[in-house]
Every structure is written in structure tokens, then in C-alpha cells.
């Protein structure tokens, strides 16, 4: 499982909507820009955001790999018949080819979003079905040789997380990046996620605080909409390193939606600086 993958990072948060997918996709883009080969796996089955954030929503059509074609044909069938067909598809296709964002095939992406016929379709599955889907994502995707695999997760500490944790026990996972916003209401849930990591033995790389302060474009007054310094105090309470702080920046929202790395396009913005910092932290520990 995950043979050619050198480093694996999980992006986790107990709370939803704090920016796990934004951090995952921007981190993947940043690593790609730094010259690494990167994989991005989205295991949020009920609300996949990665295809949208990387502008890959219609991507499956352009794939020419034989394997991928087969795999798509099978998935245009009703969800209720899926499980049996899945088993067949695996036997037939053997491995799934991920979707690439570019021609150099430097950033490979896999998400359930690519498998849905219609972007508004819901995936109404209980745990066991989600578990088997994630297990396949982990074992059957042909990532080839990549330096970094970033795994984007849904909020919570339930089926998806337990499955990933169990499956990653056999391969080494470099650690989890915990994303939070500064409000107490988010911190409450994020502490639970840290407890989860500690209980299950997943090493924690550190905490990223997102949506820190908002600088008014007219008067430059900085308002801490969602309070401030929650991430730092969280890192103090839980004794987990604090990695970086990303301010609320509507340009991230606007450009992150179009598969643009903000580090490359707005190198001077505070958001880009935060990601540069994060990138350094992630790559530094590897060289040492």
C-alpha cells in the first residue's frame, strides 16, 4: 500500500469549515511549485471540495488512461449497485489512475467528486460503505512515485478517521496538520481531534490557525471577526507546536477557487507568507 510514496501528511480538524481543504490544496500547490511530486487524496465522501478548489470538476473526460476510462464507465451506474460493481471494477482495472492538474503530472488528485455523475448528487452512505471506499482510495490508486501525499479529511473523529488511522499503521505517516480558526467554538472541537491523534498514536506536526484577522480594504482596520490567538493558546494547552497563522483574505477565497497557488500569484500577501512558512516547516523536517 502506498509504496512509492515518500511522505504522508494528514490534514485534520474536529471542526468543519475551518479551511482544511483550502490548506490542503494550497499546500499541495506550494509543494508542487517547490519542485516536488505531490499527491492529494480527498477522503471527505459526503462533501468533497478538492475538485472544485483545484478547478478539476469536469476533469474526468480528458483522461486518456485506459484504466481511468474503465473506472469511469463503471461509476456512471446507480450508487445502490455500486458495491458489487466496485469489486468487479477492481479486478478488471486493478488500479485507479488519479487525475492530474497539469501536463507534467506533478500534482495528482483523487476524490469521490470525480466519480459523481452530477455535482449536486449526495453520497448517502453509512460508515461501513465509507470505510470500504477509503480503503480502496488508499490501496488502489496508482500514485506512482511521489514525494508527498496530502490527505484531506472531513470534520470529526469517526469512520473516515478511524479507517485512515488503521490503514496508515502499516505505512509510516509523517504526521497530522491540525487546522483551526481562533474561536472558542472551533477550539473545543479541535482539542477533541488532538485527543484523537494522541489516543491513536498519530504524530502531530502542528497547528495552523486560519481566518485570523480581517483587514478592512477601505480603512485597513484589522477586525478579529472570529476572535484572536485561539490557535496559539490551543498550542500552549495541548503542547503541540504552532505552525502558522493565515489571515482572512478574500483573495485567497477568490483565487484559491481557480487552482491558483496564492504563493505564486501573490507572493507578498500575508496569506502567501503564511504558506511559505508552512512549506518550510514541512520540508525542513524531512531534510534533517
Amino acid at each position: 500500500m502506498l509504496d512509492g510514496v515518500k511522505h504522508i501528511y494528514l490534514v485534520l480538524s474536529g471542526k468543519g469549515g475551518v479551511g482544511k481543504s483550502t490548506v490542503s490544496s494550497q499546500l499541495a500547490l506550494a509543494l508542487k511549485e517547490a519542485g516536488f511530486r505531490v499527491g492529494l487524496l480527498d477522503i471527505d465522501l459526503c462533501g468533497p471540495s478538492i475538485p472544485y478548489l483545484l478547478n478539476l470538476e469536469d476533469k474526468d473526460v480528458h483522461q486518456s488512461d485506459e484504466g481511468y476510462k474503465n473506472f469511469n464507465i463503471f461509476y456512471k451506474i446507480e450508487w445502490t449497485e455500486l458495491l458489487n460493481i466496485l469489486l468487479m471494477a477492481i479486478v478488471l482495472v486493478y488500479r485507479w489512475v488519479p487525475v492530474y492538474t497539469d501536463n507534467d503530472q506533478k500534482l495528482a488528485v483523487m476524490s469521490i467528486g470525480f466519480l459523481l455523475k452530477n455535482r449536486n448528487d449526495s453520497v448517502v452512505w453509512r460508515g461501513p460503505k465509507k470505510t470500504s471506499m477509503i480503503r480502496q482510495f488508499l490501496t488502489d490508486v496508482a500514485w506512482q512515485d511521489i514525494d508527498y501525499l496530502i490527505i484531506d479529511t472531513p470534520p470529526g473523529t469517526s469512520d473516515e478517521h478511524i479507517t485512515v488511522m488503521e490503514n496508515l499503521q502499516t505505512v509510516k505517516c509523517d504526521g497530522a496538520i491540525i487546522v483551526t480558526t481562533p474561536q472558542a467554538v472551533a477550539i473545543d472541537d479541535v482539542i477533541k481531534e488532538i485527543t484523537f491523534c494522541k489516543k491513536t498514536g498519530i504524530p502531530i506536526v502542528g497547528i495552523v490557525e486560519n481566518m485570523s484577522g480581517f483587514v478592512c480594504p477601505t480603512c485597513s482596520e484589522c477586525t478579529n471577526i472570529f476572535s484572536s490567538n485561539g490557535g496559539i493558546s490551543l498550542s500552549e494547552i495541548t503542547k503541540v507546536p504552532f505552525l502558522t497563522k493565515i489571515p482572512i483574505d478574500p483573495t485567497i477565497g477568490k483565487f484559491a477557487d481557480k487552482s491558483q497557488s496564492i504563493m505564486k500569484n501573490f507572493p507578498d500577501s500575508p496569506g502567501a507568507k503564511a504558506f511559505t512558512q508552512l512549506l518550510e516547516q514541512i520540508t525542513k523536517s524531512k531534510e534533517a
Partner: protein
Amino acid sequence: MADKPQEAPEHCPGTQSQDAGKASACAGCPNQNICSSGATKLPDPGIALVKERLSSVKNKVLILSGKGGVGKSTVTSLISRGLAAENINRNVAVLDIDICGPSQPRVLGALGEQVHQSASGWSPVFVEENLSLMSIGFLLNDVNDAVIWRGPKKNGMIRQFLSEVDWGTLDYLILDTPPGTSDEHLSATTYLKEAGITGAIIVTTPQEVALLDVRKEIDFCRKVKIPILGVVENMSSFVCPKCKNSAEIFPALTGGAKKMSEELNVEFLGSLPLDPYLARCCDEGKNILEEFPESPTVKALHSLVNKIIEKCNG
């Protein structure tokens, strides 16, 4: 839909199937006797229990959103506080079925409270005289504890919440849910099937990345036949407290919730602004209706609450 046990043999026909316990795959399965006896095809006894328990509850409203962090818990607390404050004789209760990330104890200012067990079931925690709350947060020994449960265990907890809490007579029971379209949502809809769901309120923020998941939630409601009362847009615009200029933090590049509501033919109930005071009140568990009665959020809330009452009564 998902009636295969986790450790089932490879070609398990599913416990609800005609072939349950009789298919070739069932040979050797430890549960074959249970399946072939027909016990698994009977409706869950929990459904009847829930119906009986909730017979004195007039309206049962689900707060849903496919996306996390859009303000389901905040909107839940606002609506329930709004409903309770408007009429002292109206009894309102909140049930938090977000098992892995319960927020209601904090948002409603009931952190550290305990629930008591009596002969008639669990007594909920009273936040106001006519507003009570039940959440898994009250059952944890330590607020930092993680609830690391797979689906079936969450299902059991929700069943207990619905069938064993002594709510008394209620006008409104508001259910706050976690994001997604999975175990918690299916459990709640299954157990409330007989008791009846008045409808769902869908919460979203204006960006496309949230709307994308919210459309899935609407699709879910249609699949499981929950009527949709309407859509609430949260965090729609931000007014700078210093210069009073408004800025769009989560820009509605695709037309926001209003356009989505039109496209999917559901009612748009209104928007709530992004209000730093509201965020602070939620963190501190204070009632924004009392703390900042003049804030734009409170004004928007009044019309929202009236629309919901109208929808529930009509």
C-alpha cells in the same frame, strides 16, 4: 440502503434482503440464524419508542448543511432563542446530534452542566425557563475527550437521545446536526419517520465551495423525503465596525444562496450578516438578543423566526 454489517461475508445480501440468511454467502456466517429468523426485517423497535416519546412535541425541525462551519449551531441557537424569547409560553428544546463535535453547550452557555437521570428518562439542561438542551457534551467526563465512534454507536446514541430524554410538552424541538449526509442524518430521519419531521432548515454561506456541499444536502433531503422549510444564508456580508463600509469576505461569485434557492426551487428565508459580536456571544455562551438588541443580526433574526413560525404552522 446500508444494511450490511461491518464484518459481513463478502457477498452478504444485506440483513433487510429477501435472501437474508438464505443466500450461499450466508453459510458459515455467525449471524445466519438471526437473519433467517426474520428478526432483522422487522422495523427497528426504536422507531415506535421515539414516536411515543415525541408525541407531545408539536414541531420537529432539523438544521442541516452539507458544509461544516457555516453556522448550523449558531443558527440553531439563534432560532431557538428567538422562538423562546418571543413568547414565554412557547416551549422550545434543542437536541444536538453532532456526536463528534458538539457545540451547543458552549453556544447556549451551558458548559459544564450535567444531565440527570430520573424514572421518566434523562432531564435536559434548561438554558432559559422555556428553552432546554440535550447534547453529548453533557455526558463527557472531560470536555477534551474525543468521541471516537463508528456509525453504529452513533446511531445508538441518537436513538437514546430521541427516545429517552424527558422533554415534556414542546412546541418546537430543533435538531442541530453535524455536516454531511451520513450516519447521524440517516439515523435521525429513520427514527423520526413515524414521529414525523416538520421540515429542515438548510444553512449555508455565500461561497461556491459551501454551496456545492449544500446542494448535496438538498439532494439528500429529497432522497429521504424530508420537506425543506427553506435556506438561511449566514456570514453574508461584513460591516467594518470602524468605517461602516461593508466587505464581502466570502464572496458570492455564483450568486450565493438566493440564486441556489431559485435554481433548486426551495424557499430563501433570509440572510444573517457576519457579525463579530455574534461570534463573541457564541464563544461566551451569551444571548445576543439581550446583549446587543440593536445589532443587525438580531433584526434579521426576527423576520427569520417569524417566517419559520409561519412555515411550521402553515
